[in-house]
């Protein structure tokens, strides 16, 4: 079939454009959200968990001033692990930088002194859950109860209950009350359902799971107890 050169030219141009578009689209989808953020309060074990996942080594750590970024190869793809410092003054800045890239968020909790820090931990978790970017992109959450090797550490069920109770109170004090003379104040993201007590299952878009680890005792052992975390990472990367 003899095509005139103009039609051939147009066909080739259309084909090339379609190819480029498909390539860019595929590229963007692949690199769009491939990050796992490791967040938590000060001294909850984030940098230690980061180095164990990424480098497979146990290290001494001090308070982080900057984020740590490393790669983790899951079975299908490569995830970027980002460890955000927990110090109150810098955590917002680093979190804002990386939240767009979040495919999953691992929230570390120090289970041995949770009772005294529960308000701070819950406020941090609340601020992450109600962040508009996170609420719209809905990454999966893993709440890791660390320091299980200590005697007074609470298990994941107890931690879940404590957090739910605290978040229940927080959403009332932070968002607007439903009164008749209401003109509401700020962000309107209200967690869970209004007439029932807050539970993690009520968050319809965001999936929250729990895990237990004891990262410090891993200095002498193999197979650290990161199985639950690594399972979750595999599931997130899929």
């Amino acid at each position, binding site marked *: 079939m003899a095509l005139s050169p103009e039609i051939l030219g147009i066909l080739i141009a259309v084909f090339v454009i379609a190819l480029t578009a498909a390539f860019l689209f595929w590229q963007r989808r692949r690199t769009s959200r491939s990050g796992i953020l490791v967040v938590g309060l000060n001294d909850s074990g984030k940098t230690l968990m980061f180095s164990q996942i990424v480098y497979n080594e146990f290290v001494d750590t001090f308070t982080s001033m900057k984020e740590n970024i490393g790669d983790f190869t899951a079975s299908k793809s490569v995830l970027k692990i980002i460890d955000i410092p927990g110090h109150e003054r810098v955590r917002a800045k680093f979190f804002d930088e990386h939240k767009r890239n979040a495919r999953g968020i691992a929230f570390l909790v120090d289970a041995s002194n949770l009772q005294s820090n529960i*308000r701070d931990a819950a406020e941090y978790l609340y601020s992450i859950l109600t962040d508009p970017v996170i609420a719209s992109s809905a990454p999966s959450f893993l709440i890791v109860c660390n320091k299980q090797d200590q005697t007074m550490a609470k298990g994941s069920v107890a931690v879940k209950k404590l957090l739910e109770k605290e978040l229940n109170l927080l959403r009332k004090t932070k968002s607007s009350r439903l009164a008749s003379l209401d003109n509401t104040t700020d962000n309107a993201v209200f967690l869970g359902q209004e007439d029932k007590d807050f539970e993690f299952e009520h968050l319809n878009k965001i999936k929250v799971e729990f895990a237990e680890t004891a990262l410090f005792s891993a200095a002498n052992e193999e197979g650290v107890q990161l199985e639950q975390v690594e399972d979750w990472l595999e599931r997130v990367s899929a």
Partner: protein
Amino acid sequence: MLDFFSIFGKGGIVLWCFQSTGHIFTPSVNALIRTVILQERGGGSNSFDHESLTLKYKLDNEFDLVFVVAFQKILQLSYVDKLLDDVQLEFRDLYRQQLQGLRPGLEFRRPFERVLAAAEEWGRRQDNQPRQMRSFEQSHKSKKTVSSMIERPHEQKNQKTGKAGKRNKEQEQEKEAAVKESPPPTPAAPASPRNGSGAGELDEETMALNRMRLAQRLGSPNASKKKAAADKQKSPKAKKTGKAPTQWDLGGTNKDVASLERTKDKDGVRQDTYDSKLVGQMVGGIKDLEVDSSDDDDEQDEERQVRLARTKESGLLSMFKGLVGNKSLSRETMQPALDKMCDLLIAKNVAADIAKKLCESVATKLDGKVIGTFEGVASVVKTTLTESLMQILSPRRRVDILRDALESQRKGRPFVMTFCGVNGVGKSTNLAKICFWLIENDLRVLVAACDTFRAGAVEQLRTHVRHLNNLHPAERHNGREMVQLYEKGYGKDAAGIAMEAINFAREARLDVVLVDTAGRMQDNEPLMRALAKLIKVNDPDLVLFVGEALVGNEAVDQLVKFNQAMADYSAAEHPHLIDGIVLTKFDTIDDKVGAAISMTYITGQPIVFVGTGQTYTDLKSLNAKAVVHALMK
């Protein structure tokens, strides 16, 4: 001699560590990081004391490393700074390639010992050297102007010019000492009264003392005459110092009290009109502060998104970045940009010392950092300064008054907030605004009138309480009265009234107690003692310092002296210092918002409320981004 040396990355992972004792050093290093580096106090010296150790640190901004050395506080080691510099150079040379990945567990012991031995040797040599004489440039005399050193024999006669001359000499000395790096202070007479009286102002007695000492040194025959004159000056002054009882215009004695009493209402209820539109506007959290038009913010946000997107896509360009030369920042290159930033901050009403310290800490953060050729020095300095300001304004701990009040409600005791500050900053007005916010959120409040000095203070609070109860009548809240006033008139002890008020609130199961205190100047010792006593005796949950946004360099003085007074006069191991700041009269400044920075930098405590007017709804919470944006414009 050294107890501990560590090299770790800014992300927290330890690269190499050496310790000679079994002591655990982690808490000390964490304290160093949290107090010095993260709170932007890295400007001045690089040493920090924690318990019995002194820690010195050095930042390497090119590879994002921190070098920390710890030794006993009682030792005075002279070679530590040189050691830090040498170790930094050595480490970088050895591990330049591997530092991109920051793997832990690098081997450094032998080079370190070598460098340590060299540094110790250098220190020994320095100690054994005889002390160098000061050159003329370093001496104190070179700072004085010639005219100030000429002594006029008729100085005693004309006292006024003598005082002015001395004051000018002081100011000139201070200025010149500030311009050049100040040498160790000579033990001259002008120096000692300066140390004794704070900000360089001399009062009469020290002036006379100066003159007497000068006369004695000269050995003039007029010495005794001057001394007599000085004594004569002192005695009439002794009558002036000390607190004199206030003289009311109409005079009077105790018998007149009955006619002056205004704390009880005269017969008949007044017909007042109340503005009921305010009800319901303060429910929930406090609104954020808006500093300027938000159109700029949106545009800037979009710009930033675009720039971020561009940098992400420029994976190809990063290959070329290695080809184009990089330059690294040093203090000389940064100095003009830093000076400009410092002037900008001072123009925006940040206290002068604080602006200087901030610029110093930015310089420390950027020293040695490598930037690409497409970034200008000024823009890098500006970005880093913006980050530092954001960091200062972000609260160090959680600020949620409603949550804490609910917690105390659960525990069955009232949540006590105390307001202190100098005269006329707006304590009573902002107390009423906060009270309105609390009752909008269904908490019952007791106002304790512990200002027993200022005329009309109790009546003012009573009027507010009446107004608030009218806006939120008891019928709407299950017959419970939302605000009550606890007062005991004038002239009584404030600490006692506060204690009784708290007990009353506990028995009546009220949720919050707001304690209003009298305004006091920060260097009025008896009043500061009284405030410290009130706080020690009643142990409030929150001590708020109320400061106005108009204040400039004075903010530093006020806050430092308030904190110091509360620490000194409380005689406890861990005195209760200022927990938060209320920034008032924010509507009177347009964008000169520097007072916020000065106050948060000095105390390290967050700004809890911002007052933006005189009606009940003019209460906002601090929006750090908007404030920093207004500052850096």
